[in-house]
């Protein structure tokens, strides 16, 4: 029977949401091929009940290579382990998240296993008859959507953006197998050492995981004005981001840059203030569920992509918006 594998991610024993998002993608593909859906986890100290969540959210099988030597993501070791598993179990398709580790592990494995890989897919499907994975993604600054196939190599591999799909709801009636595997000594590559981790803020928020993003561009005029966006973000439970202009001017740091040379985001709601909408910025927000734009220039490109736009002075609009949201929170209307 064919199998569809999804590469799960964990941090300090906790499973990351992206692991379940992949399962919902994988479930659609597996059902089309009558294949079994597997979660593959390389990590450490993950409890049985956590592993059960994979099954409850769609997996038929969980492969867990459990070792403290897999706790940190070191690509060489993770790549050796995954390559070894692929050679033993021969999955049909492997999906990983387009995260820092996924985007490092998958191209590495694609070379050693000799197969094709498409990164950052926004759509995935199985081709009737051939069972080839149809991998669709944007290219050339988001100006085109390309559909790619790997016709003659195996397994079919693709990475998928975080937050581009929702996990299936937990179904406690689902059953499946949990297979714990040991880490083979010869898989460990000890050349690279992890010395530690650093966060530069007490609350380092991952903008790619955010449900709501509020972003500022050149129209914010100076760093201090980002306080308006921070206030708005607090009321909406949002993360604050910026255009390339804002980052280049030092108003916000690079991990929060949205666009082609920054992050691509798929939040439920994106509000852009003082952002004109250069094509590279739009490429970073195209898959947002809802786009709201505030800009004083009626010709700003961002209005082409907005679901709701306000042509006006953001310095007049934002304070009133913040106040109105306060009232809404207190009065419920």
């Amino acid at each position, binding site marked *: 029977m064919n199998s569809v594998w999804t590469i799960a991610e964990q941090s300090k024993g906790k499973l990351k949401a992206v692991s379940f998002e992949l399962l919902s993608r994988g479930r659609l593909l597996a059902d089309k091929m009558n294949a079994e859906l597997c979660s593959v986890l390389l990590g450490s100290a993950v409890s049985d009940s956590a592993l059960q969540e994979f099954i409850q959210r769609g997996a038929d099988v969980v492969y867990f290579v459990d070792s403290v030597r897999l706790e940190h993501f070191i690509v060489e070791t993770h790549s050796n382990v995954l390559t070894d598993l692929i050679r033993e179990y021969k999955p049909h398709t492997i999906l990983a998240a387009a995260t820092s580790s996924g985007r490092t592990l998958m*191209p590495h494995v694609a*070379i050693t296993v000799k197969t094709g890989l*498409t990164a950052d897919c926004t759509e995935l499907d199985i081709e009737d008859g051939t069972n080839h994975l149809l991998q669709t993604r944007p290219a050339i600054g988001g*100006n085109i959507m390309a559909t790619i196939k790997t016709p*003659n190599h195996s397994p079919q591999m693709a990475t998928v953006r975080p937050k581009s799909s929702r996990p299936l709801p937990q179904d406690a009636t689902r059953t499946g197998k949990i297979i714990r595997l040991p880490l083979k000594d010869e898989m460990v590559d000890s050349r690279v050492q992890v010395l530690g981790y650093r966060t530069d803020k007490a609350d380092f928020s991952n903008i790619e995981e955010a449900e709501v993003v509020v972003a500022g561009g050149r129209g914010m005029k100076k760093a201090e004005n980002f306080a308006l966006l921070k206030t708005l973000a607090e009321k909406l439970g949002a993360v604050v981001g910026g255009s390339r202009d804002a980052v280049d001017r030092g108003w916000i740091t690079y991990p929060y840059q949205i666009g082609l040379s920054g992050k691509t985001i798929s939040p439920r709601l994106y509000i852009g203030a003082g952002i004109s909408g250069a094509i590279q910025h739009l490429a970073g927000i195209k898959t947002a569920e809802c786009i709201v734009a505030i800009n004083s220039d009626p010709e700003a490109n961002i209005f082409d992509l907005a679901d709701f736009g306000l042509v006006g002075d953001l310095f007049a609009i934002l304070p009133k918006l913040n106040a109105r949201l306060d009232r809404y929170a207190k009065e419920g209307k």
Partner: protein
Amino acid sequence: MNIIIPIKQVPETSNVKMDKETGTMIRDGVETVINPLDLYAIELGIRLKEEHGGKITVCTMGPPSASKALKEAIAMGCDAGVLISDRKFAGADTWATSYTLSEAIKIIGDYDLVIAGERATDGDTGQVGPGIAAWLNLPLATYVSKVDTINQNSITVERLVEDGYQILKLPLPALITVVKEVGVPRLPTLRGKKKARATNVPVFSTENMNLDHSCIGLKGSPTRVVKIDYPKVSRAGKIMKVDGDDGVDSAVEELLEFLIRRQLL
């Protein structure tokens, strides 16, 4: 501290105009430039050379016109360039490209560090850097935002991850891909441009590289593009003009209603 920097020449997409009727890209007069994210790799390379000495060789796989990108990198401060060019390389996907580049890097040889940009702005995959590391069995760190220390034997870097930075120590030789945080790229200097004009850029091709032809070009590529769509950039949303204080109040009210309707609050 000898460094090799693979770069790519890409279409300049910021000024790309889309034909609104057909939804296709107007390619006339589209310039090619060094992949903007490669400029950061070049900048880091030059800074490391300034501190530790050594030689920087840039290389690129592309048509003959790609030597323009190599000259520009030399004008910024790199020392030598290699053009990897052959009709048989055309149509390569990231698998075949990383193979071809890694074979060129083997020939150039005598390096401590390979520095690549995070990804190219046209293909946008970020796969070639890690691919080269796999081919050459080089220890790899991606999304490097800072080099903490470097010496004869090792490099310690900070790598961007979802919740902060991972600090890694790699033995040399190694391969790193870098993000914008490594530093602002410098402009080419007049002196650099003179040097670039005087520098001879050798061409590596299937004639002088010992390549497995089943691994190059379109034929060597496991992936195939089977369809291209040109999505129309438009959501046809409601755009409100906001005038005066009353205008702001009613606009904010409408926005609130919109967010409630869409269940975003």
